[in-house]
């Protein structure tokens, strides 16, 4: 793994489902430590794009390089990449048959081959970081949505990834729980984690993003630092979208 390569380099990425082109030529480079927020209307390909980064979706053409390793469909490179890329989903996807602690120690023990004691110590450290160490012995269904999502973040962090992907992490949450999840994400961003977040939380984007990217119909329409993105959007579709999500 190349220590100096950018975190993510995507060039000419295409992906279609049947005849439908979900991504049509995405180019995107994310530097190490950079925080990128991706927004765009529903169905514009945001999920598809970030799911290509850890190959939950296989792309049709174009190249994806993560931490210098090309994702070419070989299993070895796939394993290597998934270990370094954490992901948080809209639906949390915690394992319901395991306690919070087991959710957090599973992958470190199986994939990183950490001894149990060490994996549990790491898990407790990250559960403290997301501020729910006292829930470690509970099952996911016993937690609120916001708590579940924070566990999901801790679970991903326990693999000590270099990159974190978030796919609308607050969209399934009741409004009063959004803040607790965003707080955790802000902390993470301030500590220098490389992050790609699909979200419509524009406050979050303003606060932590280095760059905001607007996607529509499988293409990146606009990419700019948040100040410029929100005050002086260049493209009509961006302006229209912003007026919808910002409500003016």
């Amino acid at each position, binding site marked *: 793994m190349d220590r100096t390569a950018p975190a993510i380099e995507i060039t000419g990425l295409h992906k279609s489902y049947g005849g439908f082109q979900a991504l049509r030529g995405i180019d995107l480079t994310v530097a190490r430590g950079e925080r990128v927020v991706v927004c765009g209307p529903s169905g514009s390909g945001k999920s598809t794009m970030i799911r290509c980064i*850890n190959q939950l979706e296989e792309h049709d053409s174009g190249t994806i390089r993560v931490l210098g390793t090309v994702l070419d469909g070989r299993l070895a490179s796939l394993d290597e990449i998934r270990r370094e890329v954490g992901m948080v*989903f809209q639906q949390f*996807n915690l394992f319901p*048959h395991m306690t919070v602690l087991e959710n957090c120690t599973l992958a470190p023990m*199986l*994939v990183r081959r950490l001894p149990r004691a060490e994996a549990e110590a790491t898990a407790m450290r990250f559960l403290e970081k997301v501020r729910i160490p006292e829930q470690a012995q509970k099952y996911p269904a016993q937690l*609120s949505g916001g708590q579940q999502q924070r566990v*999901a973040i801790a679970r*991903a962090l326990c693999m000590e990834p270099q990159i974190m992907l978030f796919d609308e992490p607050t969209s399934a949450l*009741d409004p009063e729980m959004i803040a607790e999840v965003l707080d955790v994400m802000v902390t993470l961003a301030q500590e220098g984690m490389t992050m790609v977040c699909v979200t419509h939380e524009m406050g979050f984007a303003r606060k932590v993003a280095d760059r905001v990217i607007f996607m529509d119909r499988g293409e990146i329409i606009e990419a700019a630092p948040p100040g410029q993105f929100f005050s002086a959007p260049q493209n009509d579709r961006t302006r229209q979208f912003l007026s919808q999500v910002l409500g003016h």
Partner: protein
Amino acid sequence: MTQTTPTRAVPRRRGLWRRLRHDYAATPAAALVTLVCGTILVAIAWTLIDWAILRATFDPAAGREACRAAGGACWPVIAARWRVILFGLYPYDEQWRAALACLVVAAVILLSCLPRMWGLGRLAAIWATGTALFYLLMRGGLFGLTPVNEQQWGGLPLTLFVFVATAVIGMPMAIVLALMRRSSLPGIAIPAGLLIDAIRSLPLLSILFTCAIVLPLVLPDFLIGEKLYRVVFGAALFFAAYQAEIIRGGFQAIPRGQEEAAKALGLGWRQRLVRILLPQAFRLALPATINQFVIAFMETALIVVVGFMDLLASANTAFRTGEWTFAHVEVYAFIAAIYFAFVFGLSRYGAFLEARMDAGQQRS
């Protein structure tokens, strides 16, 4: 929100009479239904008790005449014929071996029901030891035990053996078939689907006949083996076809995000299967699986048609001889009690498993 609190609403205390009235006689029509059903139930219960206990004959030495005179159940038939009922044609002097073999099977089943034994290594060790012991006891030929041919096995040990072997061979086959049918490679999924559908469209009887009678005609000699094992294999295949569909149903009920989350964490195919998918699929399939076990247990009685004396068949012979022909109801009641104890234990165990797996994790 999925937040749950451990406290439950405490039921308001009410008088027993008021509660009964509310539950069973809220309206005149409900009261009438309760009255009619209650009367029928009491009448049935009374008849049974009267027959099985009050007017029954328990003296083991009593014969037909004494029973006739008393008018109730004639339990001495069990005292006189229990060894035929339980062990069938197994040589009389060796029946202690058959009894021990039953205990071995019971012990193995009970041990594997304990959650602390749940590990591939432990279960494999228990079952390997248990099977070896069972076979040694029943078959003999070693350590000075007289050899007893499989054709002479009968009664409870045979029923237990066929059931346990069917489940132990059938369950892994079911998992493999279910996984194959789920495969994204048509070359694997289609043959598995065809096999499952083919077996499910055949009656168990025809499969047992095929294994017992047709296979020896078409297989090379070294593959034929003992008839009992061919029949068990047929029963296991039948079990596996149904159980595979039950497991596949469990798989399908797992949200897609589960496997994606496991992939994103870097878990490999085997780890995802063993740690994430199978436990959830089994939990979701548990009620149907217990049902399938119960059916498989009942269906062991079918092996009688290919010449084996299972529990039901040996019970049939128990009252066929001379003096006891009149006492078939008592004999059937006796084996019904055995079947009931077994199946009831199975379903209670299923309930225990469900409660245990659900502990704290009401699924949303």
